[in-house]
């Protein structure tokens, strides 16, 4: 048994030796069926891996694209919303600005209307002296127009000049009377104005409350400035009156010395010059009266 086993072992060793010799000499070739399977498997795996990678990449790309699209859409929406908000704000600002402007216009209009109403009411409530003066001015200006019309008639008259001369002289006399009344009124107004400011000075001196004194002083200065304008207007009117009346004196003298057709011709340019001066005079009288109206409170008490 023992010998048999030893024999078997030797055989095996010999066989192994032989086997090893054979292996070392012969080129080793893979088994075709085993290689292609592995390759195939590997290829499949690789393909699968690639496919998976491609899919992942595609998915990622798609996700990125979707995210990018979403971000772009979000941004666009946000931009749109911001644009809308800006537009709304602009519209609101515009509406507010328009409302403020409209309110201001309405307020200004209301204030102007109120001031106008007050001015009208004050003008309507002119003190009696100014009402009388207004009537005198109306009469005076009407008489100027009438007198100049009579002189025009005289200048255009032919034949008998006596009647138109008498009529013109009568008109000049009446104008002289009206002018004297108005002159007297002007002097009276000037004196009363001076007296009024004297009283104001006294009242101011008696005021001990600083706030009242401040307002009174400010108002006095305002009124004094306006009154100074009145005095200036009066002086200008006086100057216009003197110039006009000088012309009228010459005309009257010429008429009184009995007009002849020759002297009548000389009268025409004088009358024309006097008419221009009459226009200036009437304008200055109106200006003076308007300025007196602005300080009418001076004349509220007799």
């Amino acid at each position: 048994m023992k010998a048999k086993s030893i024999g078997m072992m030797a055989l095996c060793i010999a066989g192994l030796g032989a086997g090893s010799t054979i292996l070392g000499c012969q080129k080793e070739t893979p088994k075709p069926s085993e290689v292609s399977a592995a390759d195939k498997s590997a290829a499949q795996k690789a393909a699968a891996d690639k496919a998976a990678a491609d899919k992942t990449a595609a998915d990622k790309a798609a996700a990125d694209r979707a995210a990018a699209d979403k971000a772009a859409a979000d941004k666009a929406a946000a931009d749109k919303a911001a644009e809308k908000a800006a537009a709304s704000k602009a519209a609101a600002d515009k509406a507010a600005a328009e409302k403020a402007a409209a309110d201001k216009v309405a307020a200004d209009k209301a204030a102007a209307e109120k001031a106008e109403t007050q001015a009208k009411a004050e003008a309507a409530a002119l003190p009696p002296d100014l009402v009388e003066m207004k009537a005198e001015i109306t009469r005076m200006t009407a008489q100027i127009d009438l007198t100049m019309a009579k002189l025009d008639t005289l200048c255009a008259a032919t034949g008998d000049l006596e009647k138109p001369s008498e009529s013109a002289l009568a008109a000049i006399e009446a104008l002289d009377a009206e002018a004297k009344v108005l002159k007297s009124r002007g002097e009276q107004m000037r004196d009363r104005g001076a007296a009024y400011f004297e009283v104001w000075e006294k009242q101011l001196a008696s005021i001990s409350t600083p706030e009242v004194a401040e307002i009174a002083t400010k108002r006095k200065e305002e009124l004094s400035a306006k009154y100074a304008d009145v005095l200036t207007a009066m002086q200008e009117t006086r100057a216009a009156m003197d110039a006009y009346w000088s012309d009228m004196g010459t005309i009257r003298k010429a008429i009184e010395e009995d007009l002849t057709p020759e002297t009548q011709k000389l009268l025409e340019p004088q009358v024309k010059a006097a008419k221009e001066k009459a226009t200036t005079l009437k304008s200055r009288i109106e200006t003076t009266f308007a300025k007196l109206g602005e300080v009418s409170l001076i004349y509220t008490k007799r």
Partner: protein
Amino acid sequence: MMCLRFPRLVATCIVLAGAFAVSPGCASSPDAKETVDSMGKFGLEVAKVKDSIDHSLKSLETVVASQPGEINANVSAYGKSVAALDKQAKVVRERAEEMRSKGDEFFKEWEPPKNVTPERRAELTASFAKIKEDMTAAKQGFTPFLASLKDIQSYLKVDPSTKGINSMGELVKKAKDHGAQVNASIDAVLNQVNSVRGMLSTK
């Protein structure tokens, strides 16, 4: 504050009234009666001053709100209200002087009943002194207030115009504030007078 003070004063009055009731000799003494009477008259006239102040301020507001055609009439009405206030102030000054002298005399010589403790007597004397203090304070506020109303009147006399009254908005506001302060100081005097009167009065 008034609400808390008043019940206390009423209680004090009741206690004092009781005290005087048991000692009629002292309470009905001419000095006490005269003092109480003068305080009553003074209080009445002071209350009239408050009415005049309110009337003057209201007239001033009417002036400022005038339409052009109403200015002169409203300025005239205002002038009358200020004159009335001035007149009433003179009456109060006379009454105040009378009350002060009678009170001084009374408290100087006053012999309180036995059941009026020295502390109570001191309290009454102090209350009277407080009236004089409050009167001084009220006078100090009233004098420039009246002067300012008169000054406004002087100004309106020379400038009774729309522009003139339009320039007075701030002035009127100040006058109203000043008037409210003066009225408050007058109220303090009235409260104190009523308190002392109540304590001295016989029931």
